[in-house]
């Protein structure tokens, strides 16, 4: 019997994570692309570091940090009143940390690849840095943005090490699809695992395909044809 809860949870998690990552990554990537600070290479390196640790291990460190025994965990729980462990918000934070490099790196490369003239022309027209980023720079690096979003989204869908560790695999709350598939494989229920994998695969495939069709202008052309 297929349980749809994990799938819903997965795409909810992936969507929220991707959204938050976009908001964080754009300014960070902007800074990394344009800063001339001596600290920049260090920061650049640090951004990629979440990748180096196996997800479960990263998850374990997050588990320890978020636990009430740890000053940070205690602070978050007591002062901010947020329960991070074994909860959906915790999953989101874990996923955001782990997928950060996938979002930052391509966007940074995108910024770095843009000609300086764009920025300059916008500044001279009196536009603020924010307006310039939103209306001039980002729209001119769509391929980079797209690859960042796709990487972060797909990776969050498939990620399960961190999520498993700080989420506690609670049905309906933190049990996402990747864990469900994993469980079935562990339990040697290969048929069910295949079914889950296929569904996960199919939904994500369709989502991304839509994105790419849209990006390639195929949809536009299709609608155009239909109208005429």
């Amino acid at each position, binding site marked *: 019997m297929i349980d749809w809860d994990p799938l819903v949870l997965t795409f909810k998690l992936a969507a929220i994570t991707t959204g938050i990552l976009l908001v964080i990554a754009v300014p960070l990537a902007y800074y990394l692309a344009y800063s001339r600070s001596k600290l920049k290479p260090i920061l650049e390196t640090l951004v990629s570091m979440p990748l180096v640790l196996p997800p*479960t291990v990263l998850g*374990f460190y997050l*588990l*320890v940090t*978020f*636990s*009430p*025994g740890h000053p940070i965990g205690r602070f978050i729980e007591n002062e901010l009143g947020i329960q991070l*462990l*074994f909860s959906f918000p915790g999953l989101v934070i874990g996923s955001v940390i782990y997928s950060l490099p996938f979002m930052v790196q391509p966007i940074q490369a995108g910024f770095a690849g843009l000609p300086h003239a764009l920025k300059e022309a916008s500044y001279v027209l009196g536009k603020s840095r924010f307006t310039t980023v939103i209306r001039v720079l980002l729209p001119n690096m769509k391929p980079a943005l797209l690859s960042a979003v796709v990487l972060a989204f797909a990776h969050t869908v498939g990620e399960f090490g961190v999520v*498993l*560790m*700080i989420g*506690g*695999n*609670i049905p309906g709350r933190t049990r996402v699809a990747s*864990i469900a598939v*994993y*469980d*079935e*494989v*562990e*339990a*040697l229920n290969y048929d069910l695992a295949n079914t889950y994998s296929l569904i996960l695969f199919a939904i994500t495939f369709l989502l991304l395909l839509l994105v790419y069709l849209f990006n390639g202008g195929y949809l536009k052309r299709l609608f155009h044809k239909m109208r005429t």
Partner: protein
Amino acid sequence: AEKHTQTIRIATAANMQYAMRELIKEFSAHHKIGCDMIVSSSGKLTGQITAGAPYDIFVSADMKYPEEIFEKGLSFEKPKVYAYGQLVLWTTTDSISPTLETLKQDHIQHIAVANPKTAPYGVAAMQVLDKYDLMNDLKEKLVYGESIAQTNQFITSKAAEIGFTAKSVVLSPTMKNQGNYTEIDEKAYDRIRQGIVRIKRTDAENKNTRIFYNFIFSPEAQQILKTNGYAIP
């Protein structure tokens, strides 16, 4: 290459790793046979063995996985029980006393159990909760570890105030004096039978594997298992 002919690979379920380390030590003291221990979850190890992993012996945490292997014709014999796992309730917070009654209290927000779908200790824990009629009250507090190992991490990190785990864990060298535990009445759950099989990699039996297999059932080995928190057959 020479080392390889001499060495046997022992695929070991995660909860057995502490005991296995001692067993290998004891074994090596008497035999000139190298042992490599490969630790993973029983599920993964089963999958790998089915795919032809170069393991000589499979020391599982239950009977389901070795039976699967036997049925596929990948072992020399039916799985044999070498030990029974024992369930304990464990906390690393000193102020909490690890009893079934405390579980209902408010300051216990999370109870770690192993995933009953994949881990025998998880199945046992659920049986205990059912038996004492705690399930309805505690359902919301349960957090599931992928394996007994992850359940331990929930407990040791104090992310979960308390949890069900294997006695072998709380007796392990690294955890020996940490926190408090109480044993759960063995009658409250089905016995956790842990099985062992020799993997059929070629048709010819490996002499060394046979020697190790026999060793596991020797009195010395059984004694080691006992001190590590297992009941012996």
